[in-house]
């Protein structure tokens, strides 16, 4: 039987009668499975996992739960149904009908946007492929795999666009998405944060909280695109992305909860002494993952960003909340560091060129919400420590502040000061070793939690916490 059928690949794009897509997927699908076996979760491919599968875009169809072996997961292709006579909502093409095919003029830019987005999806699966072996519970193991298969589906979503709308070039780019490898020196993933190792579950929760949230904002901006298939694809992806951030937010929240207990239990208030993750260490991981995720938005001043907006390819998140969709007159002010490091100069930039910063600003606000929740936990427990988001200048590798050093409050540091202090701001090798040491053994017993994390408030899809979310085959 063909690998490519509507039975095998749930979809709402009429795959059964789309010869072009069938041909492309017949070649690509087996390679995707090869990639999944090689780079997907290691050691769990024959387990039965209680997973959510999207089988239609209807309210009852996008979240179908059942046990499934991951390699048998039905990665589907779904687009939010089209809006009748939708028009482009921003930029120079404001008010014109959206495009159902790729305009030649924008082929290059669109392909770049889609490939960059698509590249992050398999990258995160690669980054997380060993985490199952140190899982803190079956509940968390299942959540990890849910995130992984859905990142896989998001890859499918981008590949669908490449296959359907970009001809041979698109097929080649789709292949290349399976050839690059996170952290590989020769074939790295495109964006920096997706080449950072994700060695343990603290990093995993930070990643899903901070880095997947970048994904949310990129998808929100693309969901406004004048290229309608991209807009509709990303809208559907957003429904799934929410769960990933939920995993991050509750994961960190459960660590905070447990750390509070351990801090209070210890006579010196030292959670580390009790085998937990102390708050200063937690803060360092916030600093790390938040700052590398800020980089994903790109440079503060960007002609590409202006071009994407002007052309109607990528807008602001929820563009309709804004009044002015042409954005020709507004400017944004930046504090640009002087070359001699003596301070900053104010520079006004046309707002279109600052679109990356607009999106980053929304992200910063959104990131703060979860942090506030964690801090409420600390406040209610009577602890003085508060988790903070560092300055957007801190530890940046792209944009205005790249190549300079700042402390988390955003004060300029000399190279010597940075070298002396960075161990206070960012995880050290010792911190990495310590956190990993807490997670030497996986917990496969239903309902049981690792020492360093509290149980979740409730299970998945109304199931109890001690539900057997993953049926291990070969322990």
């Amino acid at each position, binding site marked *: 039987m063909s690998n490519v059928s509507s039975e095998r690949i749930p979809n709402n794009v009429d795959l059964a009668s789309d010869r072009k897509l069938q041909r492309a997927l017949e070649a690509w699908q087996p390679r995707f499975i090869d990639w999944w076996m090689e780079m997907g979760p290691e050691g769990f491919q024959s387990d039965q996992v209680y997973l959510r599968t999207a089988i239609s875009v209807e309210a009852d169809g996008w979240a179908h739960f059942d046990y499934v072996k991951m390699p048998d997961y039905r990665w589907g292709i779904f687009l939010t149904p089209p809006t009748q006579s939708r028009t482009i909502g921003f930029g*120079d093409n404001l008010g014109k009908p959206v495009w159902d095919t790729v305009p030649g003029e924008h082929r*290059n830019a669109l*392909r*770049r946007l889609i490939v960059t987005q698509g590249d992050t999806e398999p990258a995160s699966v690669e980054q997380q492929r060993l985490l199952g072996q140190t899982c803190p519970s079956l509940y968390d193991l299942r959540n990890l795999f849910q995130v992984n298969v859905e990142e896989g589906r998001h890859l499918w979503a981008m590949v669908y666009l490449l296959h359907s709308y970009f001809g041979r070039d698109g097929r080649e780019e789709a292949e*290349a998405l399976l*050839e*690059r490898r996170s952290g590989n*020196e*020769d*074939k*790295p993933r*495109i964006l920096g944060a997706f080449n950072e190792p994700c060695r343990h579950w603290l990093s995993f929760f930070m990643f899903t909280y901070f880095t997947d949230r970048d994904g949310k904002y990129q998808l929100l901006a693309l969901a406004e695109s004048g290229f309608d298939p991209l807009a509709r694809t990303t809208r559907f992806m957003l429904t799934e992305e929410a769960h990933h951030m939920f995993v991050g937010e509750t994961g960190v929240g459960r660590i905070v909860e447990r750390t509070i207990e351990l801090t209070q239990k210890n006579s010196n208030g030292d959670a580390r002494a009790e085998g937990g993750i102390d708050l200063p260490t937690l803060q360092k991981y916030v600093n790390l993952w938040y700052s590398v995720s800020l980089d994903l938005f790109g440079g503060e001043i960007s*002609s590409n960003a*202006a*071009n994407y*907006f*002007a*052309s109607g390819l990528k807008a602001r998140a929820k563009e309709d909340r804004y009044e002015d969709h042409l*954005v*020709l007159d507004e400017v944004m002010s930046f504090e640009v560091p002087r*070359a001699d490091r003596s301070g900053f100069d104010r520079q006004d930039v*046309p*707002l*279109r*060129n600052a679109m990356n910063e607009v999106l980053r600003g929304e992200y910063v606000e959104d990131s703060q919400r979860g942090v506030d929740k964690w801090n409420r936990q600390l406040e209610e427990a009577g602890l003085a420590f508060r988790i903070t988001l560092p300055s957007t200048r801190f530890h940046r590798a792209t944009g205005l502040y790249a190549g300079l050093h700042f402390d988390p409050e955003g004060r300029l540091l000399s190279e010597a000061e940075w070298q002396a202090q960075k161990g206070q701001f960012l995880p050290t090798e010792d911190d990495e070793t310590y956190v990993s040491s807490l997670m030497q053994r996986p917990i496969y017993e239903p309902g049981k939690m690792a020492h360093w994390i509290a149980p979740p408030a409730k299970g998945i899809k109304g199931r109890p916490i001690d539900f057997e979310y993953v049926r291990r085959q070969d322990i």
Partner: protein
Amino acid sequence: MESATPKVEEPVRFSTHPSRYHHWKLHVDGAVARLVMAVDDQHPLRGGYVLKLNSYDLGVDIELADAVQRLRFEHPEVRAVLVSSGTDNCFCAGANIYMLGASTHAFKVNFCKFTNETRLYLEEASAKSGQTYIAALNGVASGGGYELALACETIYLQDDGSSAVSFPETPLLAVLPGTGGLTRLVDKRKVRRDLADVFSTLAEGVRGKRSKDWGLVDDVFAKSRFDAEVKKRADALVAAAAPKDEGPGILLADVAPTRSEDGAKLVSSYRYVEFTVDRETRTATLLVRGPTSPAATDGKTLREQGSDHWHLRAFRELDDALLDLRFNHPTVGLLVLETSGDPEAVRAHDEALAGLGGDWLGREISLLVARVLRRLDLTARSLFATLRPGSCFAGSLFELALSADRSYMLASQDDDAPRIGLSSLNFGALPMSNGLTRLETRFLARPEHAASLRDVRHLFDHDAALEHGLVTFTPDDIDWDDDVRIAVEERASLSPDALTGMEANLRFAGPETMETKIFARLSAWQNWIFQRPNAVGERGALTMYGRPERPEFDWRRT
């Protein structure tokens, strides 16, 4: 946009030294040199733009030209030069767009001309000095970045999924690659024209295996092996190369002149060259003095003289003055070429240099003299040579008169009457861009005449010079002042644009070479496109680059 009155800017100076480079690092390790581009983005030649992504401006290219020159003279033992980038993920993004946007048309044209000359020098070093340039593209090479690679003999590209070669000029900026890229693509690398067509409209370029399949690069290597594979090839090239030249090299001393001002006149006094700009008449005079000390006839003496050697010193000074003219005196339309000294002394020095052709330093000096003379040919100003009493238009210095658009020789019977002499150097060592000698180009209709002049050992007086077609006019002392003055004034009154086009058409008769194609197409096409509204109009692509709005084109084709 260009303003009617040019801004008063600091003059551009061309002397530099590796110890003062901002943008390049030059490492010499035995027979392999590394030229690493690490542009300091905070050091543009002029303010107002940041040299991001290893993009370059004239300041960056002045250092490159200096490095290429110094490698030839100061490091003759070098056999392979690896050109790479010190910036992560980016080899070179080409000429800085904001710099181009902020420059006057005249500056842009001269900038492109200078960068083209530098790339040709690099190719000449590979072809004639036994220093083979290898581009090691450890990141994206776009636009001028890929053109720099094309000027190297071999191109290796890192295969890392993102490093690419590209010509985004047409799709992104609505202009053309300005340093011979299109010509080298099909003429030098012989890339198939349909593939070149696809490549030149593909903003993101071509990477990995396809770049090799299409002939855009010679080979691709994975990132982890890249440095080692490239080094291996450089070492192999060194092993297969001719035996090392006898070192050590000579140091090139600075040739900067002393500058003085005399009313409307600016005078730059070098040791052998005096360059005078008259801002009122928009004319300049370039006087080259002949040698006064005996010629070096053996390698040992040549090395002792080092950069004080007359040819070497005088022509480096001439080069510096020509660049000063091009960049710092845009309104000067006419350059008068003069010499002073003993024609026999020039001929003696020429013959001595010709006799040292087997010595690497002798060869390098001849090549340098030839380069400077080509720089003169390519200078878009009217060139008149005036052959006056006491002048020494002989041999290599007679090439100045041959390079001129016309020449005036005083008809005189006096003892100090001007004389013209020929030397071995007039017959092959100092070719023009078209590959011919200036005499061959001058006498295209009578090749046998050009050849027969080789046998003339005596000096030509004005009658003989006129008869043999070596000068244009020979006024006597009664007519001289008026004839020359009127000719100069008349020339200075004509349209500078029309003159530039007319002179370029007439100067380069004879066969086409890659070099003539590059300059001709630069002048004809790029300079035209650079002026068109689709590039530099209010909504042109170059104007709009980096701005929040999109360009708009006038769709009518010519």
